[in-house]
C-alpha cells in the first residue's frame, strides 16, 4: 500500500470513461474544429496568408480554446462524483485521496494529450509546405500540453468545490481567464500605474503570467524556469484541490 494506491485503477476507469459517452467525442470535434478554424482564419491565425512553415498561428490561439474547453473536461471530475454519491463508494475502496485525485487528473491530461495528438494534420501540412523548425514544434506541443495540465488542475479544484457542474465550469473559466490575463500588456500597464506598489505588482503579475511562459515554449525556448513554473502551478493547484476535497467530500 503506497500513498498513490488505486491511481492505476482510477486512471483506467476515467480514461475509458471519456470514450464511453458521446461527450468525449463532442469535445474532440469542437476542439479540432475550433483549433483548425482559428489557425486558418483570415481574422485570426492567417496560417495560409503568412506563407511560413510555422505552427505559430496554431499555438497562438490554443490558450483561448483551452480556457473554455478544459474547464468543460474538468467540471464533472468531482462534482459528478459528489452529486451522484459515487464519491462515497470511491473513498471506501482501498484508494488513497492522492491516488484517486491524481488518477483522475492524469486521465484528463492524457485525454487532452490525445486531443493535441489529433492535431497532427496541421504538422503534416507545414511539413508539406516547407521546412519547419521541428524543435519549435516540439516545444510548442510541450507548452500546449503543460498549459492544458495547468487549466485542468485549476478546473479540478473548482469541481471539488461544488456539486454543481455549471458552477464549477464558470468558476474555473473565470480563474483560468484571470491567470491568463495577468501577462497581457494592458493588465500589466494598469497595475503598473498604481502608486507605490505598481512596479512590484507588474513584476509579480509578469512572473505569474501563463501567456509569457507558454509563448517562451512556442518560440522554441526550452527553459528550466518555464517547466518549473508549470510544474509548480500544476502541483500547487492539485495540492489545494486535494485538501479541499478532503474537507468537502462528505458534505
Amino acid at each position, binding site marked *: *500500500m503506497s500513498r498513490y*494506491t*488505486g491511481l*492505476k*485503477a*482510477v486512471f*483506467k*476507469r476515467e480514461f*475509458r*470513461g471519456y470514450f*464511453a*459517452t458521446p461527450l468525449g467525442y463532442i469535445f474532440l470535434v469542437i476542439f479540432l474544429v475550433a483549433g483548425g478554424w482559428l489557425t486558418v482564419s483570415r481574422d485570426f491565425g492567417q496560417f495560409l496568408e503568412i506563407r511560413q512553415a510555422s505552427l505559430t498561428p496554431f499555438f497562438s490561439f490554443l490558450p483561448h480554446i483551452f480556457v473554455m474547453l478544459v474547464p468543460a473536461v474538468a467540471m464533472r471530475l468531482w462534482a459528478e462524483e459528489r452529486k*451522484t*454519491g*459515487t464519491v*462515497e*463508494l470511491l*473513498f*471506501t*475502496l*482501498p*484508494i*488513497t485521496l492522492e491516488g484517486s485525485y491524481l488518477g483522475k487528473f492524469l486521465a484528463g491530461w492524457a485525454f487532452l494529450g490525445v486531443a493535441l495528438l489529433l492535431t497532427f494534420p496541421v504538422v503534416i501540412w507545414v511539413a508539406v509546405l516547407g521546412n519547419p523548425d521541428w524543435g519549435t514544434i516540439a516545444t510548442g506541443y510541450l507548452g500546449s500540453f503543460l498549459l492544458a495540465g495547468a487549466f485542468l488542475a485549476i478546473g479540478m479544484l473548482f469541481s471539488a468545490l461544488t456539486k454543481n457542474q455549471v458552477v464549477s465550469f464558470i468558476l474555473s473559466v473565470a480563474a483560468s481567464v484571470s491567470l491568463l490575463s495577468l501577462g497581457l500588456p494592458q493588465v500589466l500597464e494598469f497595475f503598473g500605474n498604481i502608486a507605490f506598489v505598481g512596479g512590484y505588482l507588474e513584476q509579480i503579475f509578469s512572473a505569474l503570467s501563463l501567456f509569457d511562459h507558454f509563448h517562451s515554449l512556442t518560440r522554441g525556448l526550452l527553459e528550466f524556469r518555464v517547466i518549473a513554473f508549470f510544474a509548480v502551478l500544476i502541483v500547487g493547484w492539485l495540492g489545494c484541490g486535494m485538501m479541499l476535497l478532503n474537507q468537502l*467530500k*462528505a458534505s
Partner: protein
Amino acid sequence: MESEILVDVRNIKKSFGPIKAVDDISFQVKRGDIFGFLGPNGAGKSTAMKIITCFLEQDSGRVTVAGHDTLTDSLAVRQKIGYLPESAPAYGEMTVTGFLKFVAEARCVADIPAAIARVVEMTGLERVVHQTVETLSKGFKRRVGLAQALIHDPEVLILDEPTDGLDPNQKALVQDLINRIARNKAIILSTHILDEVERVCNRALIISRGQMLVDSTPRDLMARAGNHNVIRLVVREADKNLADQIAARDWCERLVRHTETDWEIFPKDRANHLNDVMAMVAGKEIESIAIQEGRLEELFREITEGVCA
C-alpha cells in the same frame, strides 16, 4: 470458543456543527453476527457506518476492523470491508462487468474474471452483465451494489439499507443472500424494515439522535415490547365477573375491553400467563384465546418516540 471480534466500536462521537450526529456509541460485532442497525431517519446510522468504513473520521473514540484502526490504518480497514452505501451509487455509464472489474482492480483482487463470475452468480446478475448500470431497474442496481461489496469476499460486510425500495421478491432474495454468506463474516446492516431484523439479524442496536438506546438480540427486544405476551380473549357471552377476576390477578397490569366480550390482557412482567388464564376460563364458552409475541415495531416506536418527544 469465543468468536473473533471483527468490528470494535468504542465511544465514537461525531458532530456536524452544533448537531451531534453520533453521540458516544459503542458496540462489537463478531464473526458470524448479523447486526441490525435500527433507528428513525436522521438517527445517526449512516454516519456511524461512514465512520466504520473510513469515509468520515470520528471526533473522538476508536474503531477497529479486524484489528486495524480506522484512523491510522485506513487502507487496511477498507480492504477488509465490503460496503454498500445508501442508494447503492454506481457509475451509470459503465457496464455491470466494467464496474465490477473496476472495483476488483481497486481492491487488488487476484483472479478478477473468477471473482466477477462468483458475485454475478450470487446476486443473479447474469441477464444484465453487459448492460450499462444507468439502464438497470432499482432492484438490479441494488444487486450490482451488493455484488461490488462482495467482489473481494470481505470479512466484514456493511450494508446501508440493502433492501430499501425493493419489491418483496427482491427483498427475499437479498435477505436469503445475507443469510447464506453470514457464517464467516461480520455483517452490519441498517434498515427501517423491522421484519427484516427479525428475519435476518441475530443482534440489533436501536439508536436515536445519535445515542445508543438498546443493544440486544431481536428475540430479547421483542420480549421487551409493550405488546409482548398480551393475551387476546374473546368470550361468547359478556362475563363481568371473569373480567374482574382476571384484572385482579397480581401479574395483570390492565385489562382492556374492546367490546363486552373482546378483551386484551396486559401482563406486568411481559411473562407468559396463558395457562393461568386458560385455567380461569375452563368450563366457560370462549370464541378464541391467543397470546401475542412482541413486535419490534412496537418497541421501536416506544423507545424512539420516548426519545424524540
